[in-house]
């Protein structure tokens, strides 16, 4: 089991993603990096940010940032810890989550709307990691 959120978890996420043929197919033309921002709630008392460099179906880099302001990215997908838990457990759809205000997305919306299949596969990938929530 890998603790979430942690450096080990995002490393496991990257490893799984780069083996994930469904994601590679859906994101084969995607170029753009992401920050996944976990806002404090419940057991997580400080904001946590993961950085992912996603390019043509692969993840070139993934790490936990020292702070949410350590760097910027093309896109930031943010939500509270409890909502991230639900997302990883597939209790929330990533797009529905945005439309119902449980998550916020910063970045080029029109570009993301052309890659909703890749977004789904990216979230599905998270469910493949045996996760122990904080």
């Amino acid at each position, binding site marked *: 089991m890998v603790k979430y959120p942690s450096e080990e978890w995002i490393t496991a996420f990257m490893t799984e993603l780069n083996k994930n043929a*469904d994601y590679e*197919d*859906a994101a*084969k033309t995607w170029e753009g990096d992401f920050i996944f921002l976990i806002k404090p709630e419940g057991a997580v008392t400080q904001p946590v940010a993961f950085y992912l460099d996603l390019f043509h179906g692969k993840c070139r880099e993934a790490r936990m940032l020292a702070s949410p302001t350590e760097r910027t990215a093309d896109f930031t997908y943010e939500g509270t810890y409890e909502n991230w838990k639900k997302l990883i457990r597939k209790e929330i*759809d990533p*797009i*529905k989550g*945005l*439309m*119902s205000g449980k998550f916020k*997305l910063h970045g080029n*919306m*029109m570009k*993301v*709307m*052309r*890659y*909703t*299949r890749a*977004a*789904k*596969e990216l979230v599905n990938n998270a469910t493949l990691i045996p996760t122990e929530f904080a």
Partner: protein
Amino acid sequence: MWFFTSPRLVFGPGAVEFLSSIPTKRALIICDRDLAKRGVPERLVEQLAKGGGEVKIFADVEPEPLVDTAQRAAKMATEFGPDCIIGLGGGSAMDVAKAAYTLYERPDLTVYDITPLVDLGLGKKAKLIQVPTTSGTGSETTWATILTEGPGGRKLELANRELVAEWAIIDSLLPTTMPPRLTADTGADALCHAVEAISSDWSNPFSDAYAKEAVASIFRSLPKVVKDGGNAEAREEVHYAASMGGLAFGNAQVGVGHALGHSLGSVFKIPHGRSVGIFLPYAIEFNFDAAQEKFRRLSGVLGEGPVRSGRELSAHVRRLWDAIGMSPSISSLGTIGQTDFEKAMPELVSRADQSTCVSMNPRVPSTAELERLFRAAWSGATVDF
């Protein structure tokens, strides 16, 4: 937690009379050239005039409208300053009305800013009213607008909840002059909306209720009104069913059938209803195992016992298509040569893949599966993968 969004509806034969009671100083009617030639906007002008409103008409909407058309309609709105924008016609006119309304309300935006992920802050200058004359795209009830980027360009699937009209006026006298071909095409589109909404990942009890009723009504009355356009009862039933189909898919989304149909339609300029209609049986076969319980909600709705398999359900649709003269395959359209089809395959697959519709499909197709679906639909083969 989810939402169900609907305009206020006023319906019935002659329902456009309602316009005389809406306080309006200046109304911009957006419609297509054919409707304008037939004098249909004048029925609305007459009612608006009773309420004291001044009216201008933008009558330049084309089938499968371009972004440029919406921009020109918005320019007319900006110059005229309406407090009411009315989309009158089929999906094309109503979709242009939604986009023009957005650009009029927010001249700082482009159509590319219309996504479901942002607050647009509309409704400060005008109200939006939709009046469908086809039965139909259901656009009068939805928050989606489909525009094409340029001639032969990709279809933009733009959406935002604020694009739902304040009022949808569903007047069953308006579609009575639709010829059989258009009646069949637009009715097929309505059925696709209803069936795809039922199987969508985002289906919910409210969208299901409208979808089931729409399916039953269309199976019952579409063949009748295609055969006899003067059958007022059948015409009315199909007209309402189209709006119900819109309420269903507007709140549950559509799926791979529409992704494939948008792609084929944009590459080969096939009218929307005819294009998505081709793919419905194949989409059902592809999706059935992943959405069996959802499809089984149609048991009894089609009046012939339980739905047991994708082939059985798709056979119902194929029989209906045969009754109304819909093409069962892409090749049988007779307008696309096989060489052109093969040459276009990478673009067809790319456009379908980038459609938001695939994401809500109960079984998300890979690019390889999208290609296989196109090929099955080309030849008429049953989908068994």
